């Protein structure tokens, strides 16, 4: 039941383009299935990756490199998926790392590795071949040494040393119950290989990656799309449907994270971040305590789900339901939603008000309408400030307070501390009664390059 695709990491909508000097090293196989394309690649000593093109026609292109930028570049192509052999792209090892084919070439102590073909400064018995992976001076484990991938060093005083490549299970640790885990462990705790999320054999399941884009159901890696206690996967063993994965927990994770997204008086989205104290259902039935197993037995132990805020008997949403809920104190009613908790307005509550367009606002609000902290006007991280105290000395651009130095009609704003959002408007509303009337332009405007249309096309269409 094992799929040949299990050896590959898929990049959707990507294509590997070989650099000009090795374009002739590409092998094209027209009209083969995806599975067959993968199988033939694993059987070929030359193949390390393949492009699977599905438009305009099915073509499987075997490639001798992965997309690390040295010999090939990865480009966007909506008509193609790229599959790269995991052993060549991952930065961690499974077991003793005999199959590691990465490009680390320095040892734990920082020494440079000796080339495998060289017998100097250390003579040895290994000979590079097409299949043993002893390429250049990369760390390898040809003899299954317990120290993991290693190499002879270029230091005459030190014959060989481990390269300390991390185990995949330790490379990315999990916080809470690992719903955010995006690491590369692909085996379960008992050593069974995981089934790919995009396949329905040997086990049929509902977790199709395209239906759960926020869950990163990549390849056959362990994930936690259903708020289980730890990441898990379906296995390639037909007799075992699913099993947990053995992934390290992050050390000293603070049990109570103070997140800006937590709400107490209302809930956003599905209410997973609601941390308020409502403790009865919509119809007024008191909730059961989360640390109790009576009247209802349940798996949501506060210690297992340490990030879900399962305190007292408060309404919470630890499993991604539609809204905060709880187990009820009535034996005949197991769970009920707490829909009396209101949904938050899209924007956070305004904390101050400004007159006209807020050009003279000198208040101390330093938060955007989405609750993100403002960036200081005088520094250039995360955003380079085009408007700063030097360019606008009169605008009182102190600290990270919301201001309106450029006379923005939509009110005070700031650069934000979120690297993805350059600027945003602040959590300040216009003072009551204020209104800036819309007045037309005073001068005629001339348009140049834009808005031109060849109306001939219309008659041509007819």
């Amino acid at each position, binding site marked *: 039941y094992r799929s040949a695709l299990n050896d590959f990491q898929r990049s*959707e*909508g990507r294509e590997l383009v070989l650099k000009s000097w090795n374009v002739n090293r590409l092998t094209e196989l027209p009209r083969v299935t995806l599975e067959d394309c993968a199988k033939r690649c694993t059987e070929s000593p030359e193949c390390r990756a393949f492009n699977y093109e599905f*438009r*305009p026609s099915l073509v499987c292109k075997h490639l001798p490199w992965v997309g690390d930028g040295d010999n090939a570049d990865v480009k*966007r192509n*909506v*008509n193609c998926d790229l599959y790269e052999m995991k052993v060549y792209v991952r930065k961690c090892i499974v077991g003793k790392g005999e199959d590691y084919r990465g490009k680390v070439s320095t040892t734990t102590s920082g020494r440079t590795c000796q080339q495998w073909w060289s017998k100097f400064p250390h003579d040895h018995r290994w000979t590079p071949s097409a299949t043993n992976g002893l390429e250049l001076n990369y760390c390898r484990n040809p003899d299954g040494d317990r120290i993991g991938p290693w190499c002879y060093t270029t230091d005459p005083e030190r014959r060989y040393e481990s390269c300390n490549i991390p185990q995949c299970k330790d490379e990315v640790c999990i916080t809470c119950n690992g719903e955010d885990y995006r690491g590369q462990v692909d085996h379960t705790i008992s050593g069974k290989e995981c089934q790919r999320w995009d396949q329905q054999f040997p086990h049929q399941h509902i977790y199709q990656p*395209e239906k759960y*884009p*926020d869950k990163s159901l990549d390849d056959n890696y362990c994930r936690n799309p259903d708020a289980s206690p730890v990441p898990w996967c379906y296995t390639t063993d037909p007799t075992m449907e699913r099993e947990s994965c053995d992934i390290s927990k992050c050390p000293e994770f603070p049990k109570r994270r103070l997140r800006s997204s937590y709400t107490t008086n209302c809930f956003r989205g599905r209410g997973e971040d609601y941390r308020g104290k409502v403790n009865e259902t919509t119809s007024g039935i008191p909730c059961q305590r989360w640390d109790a197993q009576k009247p209802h037995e349940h798996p949501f132990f506060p210690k297992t789900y340490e990030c879900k805020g399962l305190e007292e008997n408060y309404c919470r949403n630890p499993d991604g339901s539609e809204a905060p809920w709880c187990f009820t104190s009535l034996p005949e009613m197991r769970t009920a939603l707490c829909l009396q908790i209101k949904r938050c307005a*899209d*924007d956070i509550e305004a904390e101050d008000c400004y007159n006209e367009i807020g050009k003279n606002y000198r208040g101390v609000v330093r938060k955007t*309408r*989405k609750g993100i902290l403002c960036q200081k006007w005088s520094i250039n991280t995360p955003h380079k400030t*085009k408007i700063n105290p030097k360019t606008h000395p009169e605008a009182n651009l102190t600290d990270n307070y919301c201001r309106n130095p*450029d006379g*923005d*009609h*939509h*009110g005070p704003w700031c650069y934000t501390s979120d690297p*993805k*959002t*350059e*600027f945003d*408007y602040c959590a300040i509303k216009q003072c009551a009664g204020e209104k800036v*009337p*819309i*007045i*037309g*332009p005073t001068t005629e*405007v001339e*348009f140049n*390059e*834009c*808005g*031109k*249309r*060849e*109306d001939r*096309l*219309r008659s041509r*269409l007819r």
Partner: protein
Amino acid sequence: IVGGTPGNSPWTVSLRDRKGNHFCGGSLVSSEWVISTKQCFSSCYVDLTGYTAMMGTLFRDPKEGEPDLQRISLTKIVCGPSESHLVMLQLETPAQFNERVSQICLPPERYIVPDGTICEIAGWGETKGKGDETVLNVAQMPVLSNKDCNQYFKGRVRENEMCTMAFQAGVGACERDYGGPLACQNSDCWVLEGVIIPMRRCGHAGQPNIFIRVSVYVDWIKKVMEM
């Protein structure tokens, strides 16, 4: 578009989801930026991986290899001022302008389009059985003043919105047209005066259409492009 006819609108783009399906319209305001409406997206922080803008075709589902067809990935979404319901979407690579793809002009800041100006809407959305949904449809409609529009909508039309006149036959934007343009001609240039937003009913006989008035947000649009 309900009550429209097949036509040409080179600044109108089709927004496509991860499966390549058209879900909303948009307008090219520069080679790298598309303006649309927030109602087309689940949030201001949505992951746009796999989302594209398609332009240069009159067909909703063009065949591969159609000349002039451009599909460009969306890389960034920026939400407009709260009451604007607008979003700016950044393209991964600049659109190539030609006779089928061009940018539309932005109006002067806070400009009010005169009553009776003939404008047009365009989109690949629903036609309610009144047209061919496989091609881009266009409908012309004259501007209606907010004062007159408010008589119909009982004072609910705000200054940042604008209206076009009602048609007894029922003409207007519908599902999957949202985010597209209300373009008005100014001598030989077309200007983006409005953005199509969802209404409770579409193409309803005798009902004016409401749009977001772009001139109120021109300063924000320019600021997003500059920053």
